[in-house]
């Protein structure tokens, strides 16, 4: 029998049937123990969870050779890994990826509070042995994953704006991957937060809601630049919902009032977050979840990483080209503003903008809106360009690489959902129009 590669048996590492490991003490006494987690690192390496200073641990430190028995969860075929202990990692992408996965395993097996990852023990896989047996026939391989990546690639290649690209990615996940709940968050590097720019499948879009770097699977995926996958319900990675205080007109608690509720599932059973990266930088996170256990396997992770890669490149490309000079679009006479004026209030401390008493937007997107409204009031302008926003120091874009396009998507979507009669419409590459269907009164608050 030809020896399988680790990639061939990745499904055995999903933890459906626990693995067992044999080690040997220096005095020659063998030891055999169940292990919670065998984590695929790459084709030559696996990592095992180090949770307790037990006999297995003592043995591998004294004698690095170990054997692991795995069972194929669909066919019951046995495999033996002959491995050699290399090192233990106690932080970083591998550690965090395993920690999240272990939290799901612990919760699923009633071991919350018992399983705690102390380290990721990395082993070199020296040999993989297919053990003879009478396995069941392998079910037909899951098809269509590559085709789904292709569809996503095609859709993204047709997109001319970030808005379209985000929709294309979420639509691909929905149409071809059976994902019912997903979102894309972009990184605000200066604030070390991720803000939702697009979502699907939730009661509210949650566009504008924020997740702290390092918080939950989304925050960990961004901070550690690694996919994070949880296959069972776990409290360890739930997002804390900020308490919303009531709005007081003159002394609002801006931090509390400007929290847009996180839209995600209250009790997710499967979660998968992958960083959206380009040119070595984290741009955001692509996230999917499900109310059911074991919804996302390693193939889903592979697919999402591929899709996130396309999205990252697309975002970067748009960032680079949105400011390309282009003829101004023909001026369209703005529709006359009519009706009772909208009261808009701006708080400089965090650039939050309220429509009446309702929080609308804050941060860079809030500063952009406030500039547009003020320019409109002073000069009657309705046509704007990305370029001038970038050059306007008052907006406080941290640097040119900050994703202006994503801020505009966020602003546009918040306005659609909560902006009353205020809209911004894209009018061309790097250009857009402010549309006011009602007169506005602007008030600056400190």
């Amino acid at each position, binding site marked *: 029998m030809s020896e399988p590669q680790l990639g061939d048996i990745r499904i055995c590492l999903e933890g459906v049937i626990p693995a067992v490991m044999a080690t040997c003490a220096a005095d020659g006494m063998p030891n055999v123990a*169940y292990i919670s987690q065998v984590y695929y690192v790459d084709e030559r390496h696996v990592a095992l969870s180090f949770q307790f200073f037990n006999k297995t641990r003592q043995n591998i430190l004294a004698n690095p*050779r170990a054997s692991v028995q795995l*069972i194929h969860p669909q066919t019951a075929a046995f495999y033996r890994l002959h491995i050699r202990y290399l090192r233990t990692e106690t932080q970083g992408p591998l550690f965090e990826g395993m920690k999240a996965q272990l939290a799901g395993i612990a919760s699923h097996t009633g071991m919350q509070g018992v399983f705690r990852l102390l380290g990721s023990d990395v082993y070199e896989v020296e040999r993989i042995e297919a053990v003879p047996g009478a396995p069941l026939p392998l079910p037909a391989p899951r098809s269509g994953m590559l085709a789904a990546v292709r569809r996503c690639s095609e859709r993204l290649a047709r997109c001319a704006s970030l808005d379209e690209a985000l929709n294309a990615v979420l639509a691909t996940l929905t149409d071809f991957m059976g994902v019912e709940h997903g979102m894309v968050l972009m990184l605000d590097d200066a604030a070390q937060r991720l803000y939702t720019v697009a979502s699907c499948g939730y009661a509210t879009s949650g566009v504008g809601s924020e997740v702290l770097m390092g918080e939950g699977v989304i925050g960990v995926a961004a901070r550690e630049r690694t996919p994070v996958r949880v296959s069972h319900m776990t409290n360890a990675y739930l997002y804390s919902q900020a308490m919303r205080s009531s709005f007081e007109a003159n002394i609002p608690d801006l931090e509390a009032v400007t929290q847009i509720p996180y839209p995600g599932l209250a009790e997710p059973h499967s979660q998968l977050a992958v960083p959206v990266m380009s040119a070595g930088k984290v741009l955001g996170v692509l996230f999917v979840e499900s109310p059911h256990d074991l919804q996302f396997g390693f193939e889903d992770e592979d697919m999402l990483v591929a899709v996130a890669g396309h999205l990252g490149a697309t975002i970067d490309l748009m960032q680079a080209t949105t400011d390309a000079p282009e003829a101004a679009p023909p001026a369209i006479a703005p529709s006359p503003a009519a009706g009772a004026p909208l009261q808009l209030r701006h708080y400089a401390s965090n650039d939050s903008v309220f429509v009446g008493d309702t929080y609308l937007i804050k941060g860079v997107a809030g500063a952009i809106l406030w500039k547009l409204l003020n320019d409109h009031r002073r000069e009657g302008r309705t046509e704007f360009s990305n370029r001038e926003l970038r050059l306007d120091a008052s907006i406080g874009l941290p640097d040119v690489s900050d994703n202006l396009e994503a801020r505009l998507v966020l602003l546009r979507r918040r306005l659609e959902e909560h902006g009353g009669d205020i809209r911004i419409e894209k009018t061309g590459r790097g250009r857009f129009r402010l549309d006011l269907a009602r007169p506005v009164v602007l008030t600056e608050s400190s």
Partner: protein
Amino acid sequence: MPTPQLPSEVLAMMRRGVSAIVASRDADLRPSLMRAMATRVGEDGAGITVYLARSQAGQVLQDIAANGHIAVVFSEPSTHRTVQVKATRVQVRQAGASDEAAVARYLASMERELAHVYIPAPLTRAMLACRLEDLVAVSFVPEYAFDQTPGPQAGTRLPGMRA
């Protein structure tokens, strides 16, 4: 030979027939392991027999024959209650007709045990598929026993065992 004293509930679990994995090691202290196709545990726990398939467990059987060192972990899938027993002397013989009932009883028990954790019977039967003529019976008296139920107490030596 010391008298092993396994807690009654642990002994009951082992006697009923739960997952069992057998390990040994070679002269270079390289560990070997294979799942037992069946087990048989005496009333007092002093006599334990594990059945290994020669076609699957060649290295383990070779190691056991060479040095007598054996470690077996018994685990109840639905509760994770786990115990490991070890010995340094074994008796090895070809399985025969007298073992057939024990092997069949073990399979029936495992089908029930694994059904509790949603593993379907066909998968369990594939996992434990074996031919009597391929089975080797390895018998030993446990010299050491350890509680190995997941948790910080895992590894605790059970009382009454040889020091």
